[in-house]
């Protein structure tokens, strides 16, 4: 019998090269792929939005967002993804679809999206300038504060965009969940768009 290994590969594994890109010198933008996460879509059953909310509160200790917001729990981020639905984003294995099914059994339908998306975190002085080339959303600090979410499109591709907690030094951090099969294409567009600012590239397993 042959031996089989099941190595999970990020869709960006080849495109992502951890070295400076574009203009040399201090990078204006940092692009970091966040790997190894669980992502579960939770959608309320018809007429069960309040039951879903109660179940979420009971399990996570905080209310799930009912408007475009992202809220942090002890080990997950709950991200609004549409009316009466949200994502549960956690470090791989923390809040898997398997563990969440019983919680929402009577109130919501769950769909595993852990492999369906790629998570890219964008920060740096020029993060907003880069995102202005990709996104029609107004990311002005007061218009898009920490925790703001937009279900929107970049480069004709649906994405979920939200502002994470600021990095040390107060720099804004933006997170983008993009469909996995589009990820390399969007990544290339990000590199293209950010080259003039200089880009620092890396990957991590730490969610911002």
């Amino acid at each position, binding site marked *: *019998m*042959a*031996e*089989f*290994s*099941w*190595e*999970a*590969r*990020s*869709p960006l594994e*080849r495109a992502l090269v951890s070295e400076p890109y*574009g*203009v040399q010198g201090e990078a204006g933008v940092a692009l970091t792929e966040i790997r190894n996460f669980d992502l579960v*879509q939770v*959608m*309320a*059953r*018809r*007429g069960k939005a309040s039951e879903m909310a109660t179940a979420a509160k009971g399990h996570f200790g905080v209310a799930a967002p009912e408007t475009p917001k992202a809220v942090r729990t002890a080990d997950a981020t709950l991200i609004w993804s549409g009316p009466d*639905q949200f994502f549960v984003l956690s470090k791989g294995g923390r809040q898997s679809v398997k563990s969440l099914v019983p919680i929402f059994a009577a109130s919501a*339908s*769950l*769909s*595993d*999206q*852990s*492999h*369906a*998306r790629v998570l890219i975190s964008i920060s740096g002085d020029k993060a907003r*300038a880069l995102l*202005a*080339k990709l*996104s*029609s*959303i*107004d990311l*002005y600090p007061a*218009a898009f504060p920490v925790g703001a979410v937009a279900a929107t499109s970049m*480069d*004709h*591709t649906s994405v979920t965009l939200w502002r994470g907690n600021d990095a040390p030094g107060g720099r804004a951090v933006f997170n983008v969940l993009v*469909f*996995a*099969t*589009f990820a*390399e*294409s*969007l990544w*290339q*567009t990000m590199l*293209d*768009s950010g*080259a*003039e600012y200089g880009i620092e590239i890396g990957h991590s397993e730490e969610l911002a």
Partner: protein
Amino acid sequence: MTSSQSNRLDTGGLIDRSQPLNFRFDGKTFSGFQGDTLASALVANGVKLVGRSFKYHRPRGILTAGSEEPNALVELRTGARREPNTKATTAELYEGLDAASQNRWPSLAFDVMSVNQLFAPIFVAGFYYKTFMWPAKFWEAIYEPAIRRAAGLGRAAGVADPDHYDKAWAHCDVLIAGSGPSGLAAAVAAGRTGARVILCEEDFALGGRLLSDGGTIDGMPAADWLSRTQAELAAMPDVRIMTRTTLFGVYDGGTYGAVERINDHLPSPPEHQVRQRLWRIVAKRCVVAAGALERPIVFAGNDTPGVMMASAMRTYIARYAAAPARRVALFTNNEDGWRTVGAALGAGLQVAAVIDARAEISAEHRSLASKGGFPVLHGSVSGIDGGKNGVRKISVSLTGGARAEVEADGLAVSGGWNPAVGLTSYHRGRPKWRDDIAAFVPDGAPPGMVAAGAANGAFGLGACLREGFAAGAAAARDAGHGSGSGATPVADDEAFSLAPLWHVAGKGKAFVDQQHDVTASDIELAQREGFESVEHLKRYTTLGMATDQGKTSNVAGLAIMAAVNGKSIPETGTTIYRPPYVPVAIGAFAGHHRDENFHATRLTPSHHWAAEQGAIFVDTGLWKRAQWYPRTGEKDWLESVTREVKAVRGGVGFCDVSTLGKIDVHGADAGAFLDRVYINTFSNLAVGKARYGLMLREDGIVYDDGTTSRLAEDHYFLTTTTAKAGLVMQHLEFCRQVLFPELDVQLTSVSDQWAQFSIAGPRTRDLLKEIVDPSEDLSNEGFPFMGAREVALRGGIRARLFRISFSGEMAFEISVPARYGEAMARNLMIAGKPFGVTPYGTEALGVMRIEKGHVAGPELSGTTTAADLGLGKMMSTKKDFIGRVMAGREALVAADRQVVVGIKPIDKARRLRSGAHIIPKGETPGPDNDQGYVTSVCFSPTSDQWIGLALVERGRERIGEIVHAHDPLRGEDYDVEICNPVFYDPDGGRQRG
């Protein structure tokens, strides 16, 4: 250095004399200074002739100092960066700039095509319509190439643009177009409230007319006020000043288009930088402070080099310290033109005369004339004696009929000012006429927009500041900000008096539209020929249709039209204004979307593995799919595809089918929901089973198909075709939210969650046994045809396994979470090694589906019914579903419909082609006996000949009949036999076995 700049003034101007720049024009080297435009540098070097005109190849000079320029258009740069129709008046000078004049051959001074002038009578209004009517075939072969060579507005580079462009969004409370006194006052007023402000200025410097005309504001020289104001704005964090940026359009909902020429002022953009950026600006309010454009007076010879707008002449003198002439005359009908006299005298130039069309001039100007020692002639310019080397003598018709001549080498002309009403009129707004300034001013504006200052017809400096400040403050308030601090900047208002004068009758060509060579007599001719509406006039004469969009010519043109029609100007009206305000490069609209980034691409989970295998990829929508996997020694695609098909039919192969749309359908009513969207029933599908489903549009035509499996009581896994994945999701959401909102259904796209592979061929089960955990029963009993369930794989992960077949072979589809997709491909190669496993691409997939008679995209063409596809029996009669009623319409159930059949060529060696028409044998092909067409073809390795599917009238009744395939596109005619579409294993034993 200056010595070579013969017309450079010794002092003054906003140029940096410490930074000389060398440049070339028509191969000759000149020098200028940082701060020059190409036009001002040419003026400083005494160059008067800068181009030939479009139609008559008349010598032309520089008319203006801005983006309204009709004449001084050049080819800027060389090689791949050569850009035709660049306005010398806005092109910033840089070291090494290389420009060439246009519309001349072989040289600017000696232009062969200027013989066109001799044929001038044939180039009259409507010339194109009258001359190139027929014969039609002459158009492509003779007329068009000849016109392009003779007339063309410069030459395109002819090779790909090496530069990059991009696009970006910006958001603000108050957007301001223009940084003259009104725009700056608006920015200060809005900025002081804390509003987010974006100010766009076309020029590289802020200030607008202040840079040329100066003045006193708040008791200080305008230049000081300008630097104070710039400093104040720079200190406001939410005020963004964008120079070299033209606001070119306004769109619905407060969205504006602007183009920023980031690096046009450099020879080439620095590495990693873009040349231009297209901005989409979303603004709550917009203040248009775009100023006004001085307008010419039309008279014979008004296009002679050396004739220049009065305001442009003082811009060259005051801003650029460049003298357009040594001995200047002024022709004006208004007070403002006189400022040029002041500027010329101030710069030490001679003033030959002022020709003023008004009956009276002010005492101030009379004393200026006597001090300056030049005559004031009451009358009009009626002709110019001059040519390519400039103006020599000016003929004047004096009021009362006498004539006079003035010797001068330059003539400044002022016919008054037209507010820039473009932006305010872009939503089909029609400006209104104001008699006191004899000009059109905005009459309302798109929602959220207001005009201020000269753009609104307020021509005095004090008025511009007041209007701008008030508009900026009001805009900020309307956008939700409080009131700001500080007072309105104060300045005096200059006197304004104007006697309207549009056209001076005289001998010789008098140009209205200099870029398109439209004369006053063309307009008169058009009127005589019945083109009385301005919209007709415009198209018949091409007035205002050149790249300058008639900025200097439209109002004069319709004034002349009004006069010949015996109507007033407001009665005559304006044409519709449309964006863009200035030409915008297509590259800027495309941004990054060019070459490999033309559109977003989607890669399958096994893409990089397939690339390693040397797969040839094909674009399928946004996807890149492996089309076939060539092997060394194979001479063409057909050989590779044939090998792949034979390997599957004789052993086992696999193909990445992750591109199929995949949708999780959850909810208590999921089954009932699917019953309504599919023609067949899904509510009775057992858990653990899959079923083929067909969807119709509401009009009864087939929409999409796919296999849907029931994974749990309240969970179905639906698949769509690759092409329709997004549209089916949208359709299902429409059904869920709009048509059937009472149902408990949730839909989620899981297309990207799963890597899905089709494994097909008689050795499929052998391969699967290697990779699937031994505890899983894969036997025909344990996993029957159309079974669907989760299984464990060796090595620890779980997969979904579906026993479905598109190829007609014993086959499964297997799904693993997408990040395991590449590992899956590698592991299938390992597991299948003993059985000669072969990866296959979309071509082999297509061949096998045609052999099996499965319909796909070419048959689901948006014209076929379920019955046409041979799937009519699937239509349930026990339930309602989308398309049910309309599918029963007479025409959709008619007996003579074209239905799917198989075809085989009678000559077994013949290749079939899709698109060939089916005609009864022995008949001459024509529309009356066209009975269908060939939809899909392939070389069938199994049949060892080409086979195809076709839509043929009454096809199922005609199995065995020989018909004619007529392919006029490729010039082929041959006979084919109609046959059963299932060429391979018609009883289906192989896929069930």
